[in-house]
C-alpha cells in the first residue's frame, strides 16, 4: 500500500527512520575525526605523554614553542604541550603591555635580543605565515624611543650609546638645543643629553603578536591545554662532585595538570619542562623544589622573580605633541607615548621601592597619577598641564628582584627545568630572541646565535649581578 511514510500510523515505519538516523550517528561517532561517544570524553585533558611541557602560554612560552618546532631536526620530531591557566589572558603581562620595543640598553646581550626581535617583527608575516590565514597587522609605530638624561647620568648614557652603536643599533645623541629644535613641545630644563633611536624602535600591538604566534604554533602541531600545574613528580640522584661533595640532582618525570574548577587532573609524562609562567614563575619553581634548602647554598637559592604591579594611564590632550612624538622616557622615570590619531596619550611611571603597590589584584590607583606621574609629565611637556585622564589599567611585571634582567637556561640541580622568565618589563620585546635561545639550549645543548650565558640561573647563587641601567 502506498503510504508517504510521514503519517504516524503504520507500525514500524516511523521507527525505521529513527533507527537509520541513530545508526548513522553511531557510525559517524566511530569514524576518526569525530568525538567518540562510546568512551569517556577526554578532549579537554592534555595528552599523557609529551616531550616538552611549557608552563605558561604568554608571548615567551609561545615563542619557545615556535622556535622548538622551527629548529627541530625532522618534522614532527618534538611533541610540545603548552599549559596555560587562563585562556582569556586576563592577567597575563603580554596582553596588558604597552608594547614598546627599543634597543637602548646597556648590556650587549639585551641589545642583540632587541635587534633580533625587531627583525622578527619586521618579517613577522614570513615567520608566522599560515596557509589560508590573513597576514598579521602588528600596527607597528616606528617612531622610536627618546631617553632623556640629567647631568649625572649623561656620561653613562654616552657610554651606553657607544655600546649600542657597536652592536648595530641606530641611535643618535642630541643636545638640549637640538632637542628643542626637533621637538619644540619639550621643556629641556634639567636635561643634559638625550638619546634618540632612529630605526627599529617603537611600539606595536602585543595582542596581535600573541594571536599570530598561537595560530602558527597550532598549525605546527603544538598542543594547548587550559589547566594549572599543581605538582611535579621527580626522581633524584645522588652524585659526587670532583671534590667529593654530595650533590642531589633532580629530574622531573611527570607534570600534574589540574583542570579549571574541578579536581580532575592529568599526569603528563615529560622530558623537559620550561618555566615561562611570567609573574608566577616563582610558584612553579617552588613546586619543583627550587629553593628548599639552607639559605646561602645552591639548593637554597630561590628564583627571585615576583609579580610587581604597574599602572598605565590613558589621557587626552588636544594641544599635545604631534604625530612625530617618540616614546619619551623622562629623567624622573615617567614615560608617555601617543596612541592613535586623536590626541590620546598613554604613559606611566615605575614606582620606587617604597611606593610599590600591593600585587594581590589589578586595581588601579588613580591618586598615583595625580601625585607621582602628572607633575613630572607637566614639567617635561608644558602642554600636559591641561589633560584629562580617560582610562587606566594595571598589569604585572615579572620582576627579577636580583638585577631586573631575565633568567634563561637550565637550573643546575633540577636538570630538566629551563627558565624563560623574569624580564621585568622588557619580556615582550625580547621574546623572539629568548625563545630561540631556549630552543637552541634544549635542542643543541648550548646557545648558538646570541650567547645568553650571563643570564643563567647560577648567577643568583654566585652573586654576579648583571645590572641594566635603562629600565623604564
Amino acid at each position, binding site marked *: 500500500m502506498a503510504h508517504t511514510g510521514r503519517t504516524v500510523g503504520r507500525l514500524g515505519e516511523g521507527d525505521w527512520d529513527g533507527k537509520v538516523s541513530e545508526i548513522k550517528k553511531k557510525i559517524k561517532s566511530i569514524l576518526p575525526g569525530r568525538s567518540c561517544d562510546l568512551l569517556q570524553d577526554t578532549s579537554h585533558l592534555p595528552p599523557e605523554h609529551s616531550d616538552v611541557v611549557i608552563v605558561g602560554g604568554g608571548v615567551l612560552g609561545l615563542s619557545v614553542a615556535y622556535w622548538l618546532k622551527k629548529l627541530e631536526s625532522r618534522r614532527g620530531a618534538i611533541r610540545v604541550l603548552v599549559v596555560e591557566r587562563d585562556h582569556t589572558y586576563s592577567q597575563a603581562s603580554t596582553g596588558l603591555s604597552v608594547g614598546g620595543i627599543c634597543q637602548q640598553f646597556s648590556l650587549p646581550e639585551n641589545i642583540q635580543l632587541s635587534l633580533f626581535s625587531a627583525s622578527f617583527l*619586521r618579517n613577522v608575516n*614570513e615567520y608566522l*605565515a599560515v*596557509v*589560508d590565514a590573513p*597576514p598579521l597587522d602588528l*600596527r*607597528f*609605530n*616606528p*617612531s*622610536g624611543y627618546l631617553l632623556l638624561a640629567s647631568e649625572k647620568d649623561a656620561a653613562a648614557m654616552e657610554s651606553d650609546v657607544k655600546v649600542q652603536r657597536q652592536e648595530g643599533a641606530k641611535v643618535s645623541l642630541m643636545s638640549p638645543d637640538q632637542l628643542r629644535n626637533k621637538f619644540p613641545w619639550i621643556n629641556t630644563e634639567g636635561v643634559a643629553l638625550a638619546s634618540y633611536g*632612529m*630605526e*627599529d624602535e*617603537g611600539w606595536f600591538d602585543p595582542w596581535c603578536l600573541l594571536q599570530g604566534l598561537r595560530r602558527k604554533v597550532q598549525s605546527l602541531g603544538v598542543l594547548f591545554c587550559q589547566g594549572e600545574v599543581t605538582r611535579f613528580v621527580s626522581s633524584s640522584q645522588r652524585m659526587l662532585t670532583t671534590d667529593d661533595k654530595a650533590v642531589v640532582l633532580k629530574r622531573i618525570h611527570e607534570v600534574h595538570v589540574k583542570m579549571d574548577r574541578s579536581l580532575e587532573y592529568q599526569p603528563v609524562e615529560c622530558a623537559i619542562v620550561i618555566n615561562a609562567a611570567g609573574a608566577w614563575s616563582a610558584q612553579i619553581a617552588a613546586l619543583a623544589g627550587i629553593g628548599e634548602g639552607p639559605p646561602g647554598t645552591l639548593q637554597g637559592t630561590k628564583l627571585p622573580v615576583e609579580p610587581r604591579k604597574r599602572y598605565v594611564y590613558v589621557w*587626552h*590632550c*588636544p*594641544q599635545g605633541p*604631534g*604625530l*612625530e612624538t617618540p616614546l619619551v622616557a623622562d629623567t624622573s622615570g615617567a614615560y608617555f607615548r601617543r596612541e592613535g*590619531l*586623536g*590626541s*590620546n596619550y598613554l604613559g606611566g611611571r615605575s614606582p620606587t621601592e617604597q611606593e610599590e603597590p600591593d600585587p594581590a589584584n589589578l586595581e588601579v590607583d588613580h591618586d598615583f597619577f595625580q601625585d607621582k606621574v602628572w607633575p613630572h609629565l607637566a614639567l617635561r611637556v608644558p602642554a600636559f598641564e*591641561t*589633560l*584629562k585622564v*580617560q582610562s587606566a589599567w594595571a598589569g604585572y611585571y615579572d620582576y627579577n628582584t636580583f638585577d631586573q634582567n631575565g633568567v634563561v637556561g637550565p637550573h643546575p640541580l633540577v636538570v630538566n627545568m629551563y627558565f624563560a622568565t623574569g624580564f621585568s618589563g622588557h619580556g615582550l620585546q625580547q621574546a623572539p630572541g629568548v625563545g630561540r635561545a631556549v630552543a637552541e639550549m634544549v635542542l643543541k645543548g648550548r646557545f648558538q646565535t646570541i650567547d645568553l650565558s650571563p643570564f643563567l640561573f647560577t648567577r643568583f647563587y654566585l652573586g654576579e649581578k648583571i645590572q641594566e641601567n635603562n629600565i623604564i
Partner: protein
Amino acid sequence: MAAPWASLRLVAPVWNGRIRGIHRLGGAVAPEGNQKKKRTILQFLTNYFYDVEALRDYLLQREMYKVHEKNRSYTWLEKQHGPYGAGAFFILKQGGAVKFRDKEWIRPDKYGHFSQEFWNFCEVPVEAVDASDCDINYEGLDNLLRLKELQSLSLQRCSHVDDWCLSRLYPLADSLQELSLAGCPRVSERGLACLHHLQNLRRLDISDLPAVSNPGLTQILVEEMLPNCEVVGVDWAEGLKSGPEEQPQDTASPVPA
C-alpha cells in the same frame, strides 16, 4: 598544478603577484564563483592532508623567497662602480626608472631591457628615481639609501613598501625634496609619522593609501608635522560633517575624545 597557483594568489594577494611581477590587489582573472569553489576544495584538502598543506606552505615560502632574491644588496657592484651605479642598476633591474643629474630618464622597455650606457657616467649623482610598481622591500632600500643626493623619489603602488621602510628614509633627509607614496597598500599613518626627519621635503603625495584609517585627519597631522611641505592627496574636508554637529575649536578646556 594550476590550482594551487591561482588560489595562492587569492589568498595572499599582497605577496603573490602573477609570474611576470605585476602586483595588483586581488586581480581576478576567472569569475568570482569559480575562484571561490576552487578555494573551498583546496581548503578542504589542506585541512585533511598534510601533503597538500606542506606543498602549499612550500609554494608560499617560495613566493616570499623570490621577493628577497630581487632585493639583494649589490655590494660588489658598489665596490666596482660606486654607489650611484649600483643603485641605478638595482632600480632598473626592478623595472623602475632613473634620472642622473643633467641627463635624461633611463627606463627599461617592456621586455625589461635597458641601455647599459649609464655605467660610463656612474660618478654623476642620481637625482630622481621612479620606482612605481616595483618589488622593493626593506632590504632593497639598502641600495636606494646609497644615493645620497636623491631629490625625488616615487614609490607609487609598491606593494612591499610598509611602515618599516618609511622609518629607514631619514639618511636622505638632506637632499630629498619630493616623495610620492600614492597607492602603497601597506603604508599607514604610523609610517607617515616618521617622515618628520625629512625636513627638506617640499612635496609629499599620500593619496589613495588604503591602510590609513582616517585620511582627512592624517593629512592635517602630516601638514602640521612638515610645515614647509605641500602635502597632496587627500581632501581633508571629505571626512567632516558640516553644520551644528561640528565641535568648536576651544583650546582653553580639553575636548573629550
